[in-house]
């Protein structure tokens, strides 16, 4: 029985926190399962929405790029260039905004049951990840239609997906914890997502920024501070077989920033976690 011994004291760190998290993996699984089940209940086309939404976005992005005649590297279908950026962006925007709101959305659980609170945002991210895999079908379909054969670099794609995951969890945890106390963040999140779309290379290519002689070096570094730049450039680089550039100093800045976000996110979340039920 002593293996279940619990000591509750104010202020002290729960030394078994990560073990506890592991013990509650069943709940983690069930919460993710619930969100997946609920997501498309009572909809006519169900999971097709996971494909339709990014597909329409890709189409619009492609159309605008075509209309304004932005340049495309040789031998790369324009639509693939757009698709390689839209999919990770959609993953980031949905997982960031949903994790940020996850604690509020599950407030009835937080005030009635104990479990490591990290489970809630973590299971939310998993749902978004599954959505991402479903929408990945679009990319495969486009490749088949354009007879595009990716080269070996595509095997590095999971690495960049991991980077996107780290960014959205890191930022999501931080904002989710803040959101519990300050509901202002409910209004900040859509703004961040919308603003992020303009400063990330979704509708344009990073090559414009990095290879632009008119821009001073400092602007390029500032541009790299947006960690999604590294993710999107990486996705393009993998999928298009290196036909678009991967600016390495910028990429490492992205990685460093994402890891910093993750640590700040987890640290702040853990710090606030104990008071969630009091203030939510």
């Amino acid at each position, binding site marked *: 029985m002593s293996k*279940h011994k619990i*000591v509750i004291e104010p202020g002290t760190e729960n030394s078994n926190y990560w073990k506890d998290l592991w013990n509650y993996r069943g709940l983690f699984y069930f919460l993710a399962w619930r969100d997946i*089940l609920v997501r498309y*209940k009572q909809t006519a086309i169900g999971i097709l929405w996971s494909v339709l939404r990014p597909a329409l976005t890709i189409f619009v992005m492609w159309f605008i790029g075509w209309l304004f005649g932005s340049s495309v590297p040789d031998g790369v279908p324009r639509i693939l260039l757009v698709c390689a950026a839209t999919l990770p962006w959609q993953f980031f925007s949905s997982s960031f905004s949903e994790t940020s709101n996850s604690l509020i959305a599950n407030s009835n659980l937080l005030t009635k*049951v104990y479990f490591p609170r990290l489970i809630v945002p973590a299971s939310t991210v998993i749902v978004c990840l599954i959505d991402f895999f479903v929408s990945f079908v679009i990319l495969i379909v486009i490749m088949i239609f354009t007879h595009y054969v990716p080269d070996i670099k595509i095997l590095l794609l999971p690495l960049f997906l991991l980077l996107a995951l780290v960014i959205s969890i890191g930022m999501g945890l931080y904002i989710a914890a803040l959101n519990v106390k300050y509901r202002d963040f409910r209004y900040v999140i859509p703004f961040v997502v919308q603003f992020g779309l303009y400063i990330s290379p979704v509708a344009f290519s990073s090559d414009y920024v990095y290879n632009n002689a008119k821009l001073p070096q400092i602007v390029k570094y500032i541009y790299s501070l947006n960690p999604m730049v590294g993710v999107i450039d990486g996705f393009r680089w993998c999928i298009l077989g290196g036909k678009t550039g991967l600016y390495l100093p910028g990429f490492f800045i992205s990685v460093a920033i994402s890891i910093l976000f993750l640590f700040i996110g987890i640290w702040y979340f853990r710090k606030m976690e104990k008071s969630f039920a009091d203030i939510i």
Partner: protein
Amino acid sequence: MSKAIITVEHLSKSFILKHQQKERYTTLRDTLANKAKQILKGASGTSLQTEEFWALNDLSFEINQGDRVGIIGRNGAGKSTLLKVLSRIVAPTKGRITIDGRIASLLEVGTGFHPELSGRENIFLNGSILGMTKTEIKNKFDEIVAFAEVEKFLDTPVKRYSSGMYVRLAFAVAAHLEPEILVVDEVLAVGDAAFQKKCLGKMKDVSQEGRTVLFVSHNMEAVQKLCTTGILMQQGRLLEQGGIDPIVTKYLEVYASSVSTYEIAIPENHETIPGYAYQLKIEDINGNPISEVPIGEAWQVRVSFKLTKDTPHFIIALGISTLFDLSLRTTWTIAGDYKKGTYEVVFKNDDIVLADGQYKFVVGLSTEKIPFHYIEEAGFITISDVSSLTNQSQVVNTKSGILINQMKAVITKID
């Protein structure tokens, strides 16, 4: 077996209450300026006066393995906060708790139920939220379904369930938890009487398997049936700990029986409704306030209310029900047009004899058949088991049912 399974030492929990300073604003400009100031200061939190409120105050006690502990006290005594701290939902401010066993808490029936999911899916979801593993749920699945009596509707979304079915399913899941320590907060106050009885029986079974149960309830009958020991709390402090019967008696002495006048909170929307009730008094038939009525004695209830407008077709009603929410009787006044003013109404009970125990009153006010003020627990009456000599003809056996009056029974020889 008398090993302490829960040890609580000097436990305290405080909340910070914020009060807004009230000032009179004379002009719109002042108002705006002050609002702006407030917004600016609000961010740093200085314009709000804060006050510390101790929901739990230096609580120390031990609970032994296999104890069934009833935690009782009035609203705001800190019972629910104590359970929340024990369940690790909120962190204590001071003190230390040592728990030596797997703990599961049931602070609400159907936590995490999702209306869009089917009954089957919700059993799994709710079970895992309460701390069961998938295999445990699978093994208990049939038992849960049978207990809840929802076999036919397993694949229907619970949003289409009747509220009774919903509650039955939710309780059924919780009842099949098998932790070493079970923490339960006032969850029996749901469902119909038959199901409540079933729940209570199930809880008793659970606790007889040697498990430790902590049970919060306002229903003294349920507490006495279920628990072996009790903890009486008052304003965040522990007043007394001991065997359940002396604790319940003490509780009734301290509260229920010493109160004959119940103040009713003025409703928040009192400016928009035609009036409100503000006080309920229990009296003997001569109008003297009493807190406890001997069984068989007549009593009356005086309700004071205020009408802030002239109110046409006004009716005030008094309902009496058991603590199990079984309605016994409702009495309506004859409708009439009443002018603005303060009134009182007396409801006399000189016909029905209630068995000993506690009963609660519901008060409702309506105009043109539209209710505007409804008070769920406006007051309580305690009927005590000391039959007065004046009513010997009515009271034959005080344990024969809720209603003690005798029917007219005539025996005729027919053959």
